[in-house]
């Protein structure tokens, strides 16, 4: 290294323009993909876990019988539970990925550096969870593919109901991303958010109707389940893919919830980062 080594730098480093969210998201996905590839075993373990999960549901379905309560479980128990587990995994990641990633950045020492860069904090945090969301979507698609190919899962869809399933999943992802950003805001302020995120994931499994219809829950829990967006999302996707219906009412509720929750969560995250800047705790963990 010589002092002359800096001369070519001046004028060669492009001037930073306005930071585009997609540029940061793409760079975050490349970063996390590269890190993920440096650990080889999790890919094989993920595939194994999908197969075990499908086999578990298949055996459970044989115990329950092929058509228990045909009105509540259109398509049979296996289809009902497979969609439940796949969506639980995907929405669970959406819910927890921002907070987990933020916590990892806190403890690894990169958070304060990230937040002194020109990218706005909300963009940096949103981008930080994007790889996990993408990976969970790919894993969900792979699990459904295995269920179709190896376990005989069949859908009953029309073009309209397939579009409804896509729209419902998208709207639910927005709702859960918003909740995930709110959890990330909690981590910025209180540092430890693991308990909260694991509680939220467990609550989804119990209340959302993953392995059983929520109608089997006791009345108080059933009322709670009826206001959990995960339950709405499962109802929409199951009705669309297994019964060929388009549940417009529930779709509309999900869309409105997403439209309200995301700006609110962004605002909350911004306030949390501002508070950490005021208290000087941005780099603490």
């Amino acid at each position, binding site marked *: *290294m*010589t*002092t*002359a*080594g*800096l*001369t*070519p*730098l*001046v004028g*060669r*480093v*492009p*001037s*930073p*323009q*306005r*930071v*585009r969210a997609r*540029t*940061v998201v*793409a*760079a*975050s996905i*490349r*970063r996390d993909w*590269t*890190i993920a590839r*440096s650990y080889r075993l999790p890919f094989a373990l993920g595939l194994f876990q999908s197969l075990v999960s499908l086999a578990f549901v298949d055996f459970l379905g044989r115990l329950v019988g092929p058509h228990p309560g045909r009105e509540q479980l259109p398509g049979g128990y296996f289809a009902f539970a497979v969609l439940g587990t796949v969506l639980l995994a995907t929405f669970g990641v959406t819910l927890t990925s921002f907070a987990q990633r933020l916590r990892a950045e806190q403890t*690894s*020492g*990169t958070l*304060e*550096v*990230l*937040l*002194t*860069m*020109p*990218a*706005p904090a909300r963009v*940096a945090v949103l981008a930080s969870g994007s790889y996990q969301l993408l990976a969970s979507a790919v894993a969900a698609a792979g699990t459904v593919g295995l269920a179709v190919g190896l376990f005989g899962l069949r859908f009953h869809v029309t073009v309209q109901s397939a579009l409804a399933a896509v729209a419902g999943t998208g709207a639910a992802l927005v709702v859960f991303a918003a909740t995930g950003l709110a959890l990330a805001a909690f981590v910025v302020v209180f540092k430890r958010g693991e308990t909260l995120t694991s509680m939220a994931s467990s609550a989804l499994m119990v209340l959302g109707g993953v392995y059983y219809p929520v109608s089997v829950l006791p009345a108080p829990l059933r009322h709670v389940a009826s206001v959990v967006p995960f339950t709405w999302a499962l109802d929409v996707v199951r009705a669309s893919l297994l019964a060929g219906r388009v549940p417009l009412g529930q779709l509309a509720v999900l869309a409105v919830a997403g439209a309200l929750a995301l700006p609110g969560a962004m605002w909350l995250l911004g306030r949390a980062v*501002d508070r950490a*800047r*005021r*208290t*000087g705790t*941005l*780099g603490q963990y």
Partner: protein
Amino acid sequence: MAEGVTKRFGPTVALAGVDLGVAPGEIVALVGPNGAGKSTLLRILATSVVPDSGTVRIAGVDALASPVAARRHTGVVTGEDRSFFWRLSGRQNLEFFAALHGLRRREAAVAAAATLAAVGLGEVADRRVDRYSSGMRSRLGVARALLGDPAVLLLDEPSRSLDPEAAERLRQLVAAFATTRPAAVVMATHDLAEASAVATRVVVLEQGRVRAHLAGGDGTAGLAAVLAGAGT
């Protein structure tokens, strides 16, 4: 740069009305005992801490009203080894951080290559950061700070974990960038020899106040005398 900056953390007064101006091409070393307010002042200039009162302008931008705009003109060197993604190479790290400056993939690659070459890491650019020495990681920290071609470079004890030779290389690099760009440089350090050698001006902080301004060439003895008076 900073005018009347005050910051309290609970009952502790970290900064009490600090004024600091740094011109392009100038290197200001902040020295003082632990708790004098050096790191807090740097963090305020870097916008990661908001002052209770006072004004901060970075390259003409009001850093309190428009922190994101101010960050476009600022490069920060934390002196913290952990602030990289260790399973990525030096090049991959810089390409990622360049994206946070708004550089697209191709521009980020150009910026990363240029800054890696500038700090003498071109030959190990594709080596994973967990296989870098402390000196290499320090230089990578400087490279990261230079990615946006900053008008203001902020360094917090950049040489604290370096051997004398590596520390001297780092000082040369900072001095070269300050004069070549030219950039305003503010560096917090406990090393009086470093402050005396690299700085054009030394600012002595004590209990959150500016106690003295000294010319950089005044030598270690002069600095030590002032600091002794400051209770170190």
